[in-house]
């Protein structure tokens, strides 16, 4: 059991985006024989969860989120490097994220990408107005576990359905999980087209990806 004070400090370094104190905390903890994985899961990860929650409530903003992600990456890299080779470093999960063909809205997707990165996922951000074929191609090439698509218009939602069909045609539908989001997109739509999950917003997207990957 790690001292509650250390865990609280770890969490705070993420919420307040303090990279040097976070790195020093990890280095000292590791040299004191503290379990790095426990420090990560009980201290730093609650910190990044808090960041996501505050972002969703409008009390913390995108630059802070990006800085928190940077701190999170630094401590995760340090902890991973300290683990015996059979325990890590392990990749948390790989995702392709794109705004669908015909849709040029990329602000919401930018938030999702930032939050996914902050939570330790490897993200292949394909940008906006992305052909369905390109999404499938990158998913295969990078061997991703999750494909996330955003559609901000009722006229472009249909591309999310097209992706489901394209994944089946490519023979990889059972190898990847799909998650859909965007202003007009709903859980009902996700179920109708056969997507694996629907994300109400970026923070919900994290929760759904965790459920899908169990990580």
């Amino acid at each position: 059991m790690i001292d509650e004070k250390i865990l609280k400090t770890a969490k705070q370094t993420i919420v307040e985006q303090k990279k040097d104190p976070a790195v020093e905390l990890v280095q000292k903890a590791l040299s004191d024989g503290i379990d790095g994985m426990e420090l990560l899961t009980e201290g730093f990860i609650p910190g990044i969860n808090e960041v996501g929650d505050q972002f969703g409530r409008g009390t913390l903003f995108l630059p802070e989120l990006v800085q928190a992600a940077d701190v999170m990456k630094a401590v995760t890299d340090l902890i991973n490097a300290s683990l015996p080779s059979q325990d890590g470093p392990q990749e948390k999960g790989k995702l392709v994220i794109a705004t669908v063909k015909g849709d040029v809205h990329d602000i919401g997707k930018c938030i999702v990408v930032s939050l996914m990165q902050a939570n330790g996922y490897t993200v292949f951000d394909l940008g906006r107005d992305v052909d369905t074929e390109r999404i499938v191609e990158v998913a295969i090439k990078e061997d991703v576990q999750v494909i996330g698509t955003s559609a901000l218009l009722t006229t472009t939602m249909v591309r999310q359905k097209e992706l489901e069909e394209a994944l089946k045609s490519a023979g990889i539908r059972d190898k990847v999980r799909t998650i859909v989001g965007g202003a007009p997109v709903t859980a009902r739509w996700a179920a109708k087209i056969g997507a694996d999950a629907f994300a109400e917003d970026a923070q919900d997207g994290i929760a759904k990806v965790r459920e899908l990957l169990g990580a």
Partner: protein
Amino acid sequence: MDQFFHRMGDGSAVQMTAKQIMADLVEGSEDAADRGKIPPLAKEEYDYLLDIFCSPHKFISVEPGREVILTYDAATLKIRRVGVHVDRIQALQIYEKIMGADTMELAHVDYSYKPVKPIATFEQPILEQALLATHIPLFYGAQPNLGLYSQPDGPFPNPSELMPMGKIKEAQESYEAALEDLVKDIVFVGSLMYESGADGINLDTAGAAGDADFLATLIATEKLKAKYPDICIEIGMAGEFVLGMHSQLTYKGERLAGMYAHQQVKMAEAAGATIFGPVSNTNTSKSAAWNLARAITFMKACGEIANIPIHPNMGMGVGGVTVNDQPPVDVVSRSSAAMTTLCRLDGL
């Protein structure tokens, strides 16, 4: 226990007990109160909402005398979007004679100030002709839409690409440069349309690209108001709080990022806006009761503090209205009546 017909935020039908509906009303209102640091609804307000949600009637309305002004935005494109191919002046006449509109808006199909700028002088004669043939107040409107100023749609580096790469300063500088161009475009188009005779200028879905988008809207409002002291400007918001995409921008010394409706309206007032259109987003995974109580809590706080008229947005996916292309009459009428009955508002 009796079950009542209800809907989720995506419009799906569900059955709920009165106890479940009341629990969702309280939870929705408390969520808004917690986020906005504003008071939750009172017991009699919950009771009223429970009554209308348990009513067997398909349609609910306000009591006579409590009706409010109904402002339509972008209707000249909405009518064509559904495949009714009338020209825009005909669309305005349909809305004023048939749809019960109290005000209307002439809008271009590419509903942003930037694309209107090069064709503004082609828009003016249509507006002038429309003003000869219609009776009700006529806005000219479009979205500020700051996103159009970054690559590949505009000259500035795309903050949505820079930010995930950790290039925070570069992203912020890009927003700052882009908003200056946006202000110029809004003032350019707004001036021409006002000089053509528009009754008002509508800046619709302000803040869609975050705090820089909202700041540009406020500065443009200030400039138009200084140029034409009698001009009517309506600012309608894009979302319930201002996204902090830049995060450090201020107006009159106040940080814009994270502002909710009751704080946004003070900025709109300070800029000289005549009417403010606040927003509360619908959560599709929650019930209509949860969403409506939440929306009313936000709008009530805004209405109580506003010194200018407010027209809460009640379109698809906002103001307790479900996220669906065809929002059901039962839920829209309940949202419309409840918002109007419980909030100190001046229009929708």
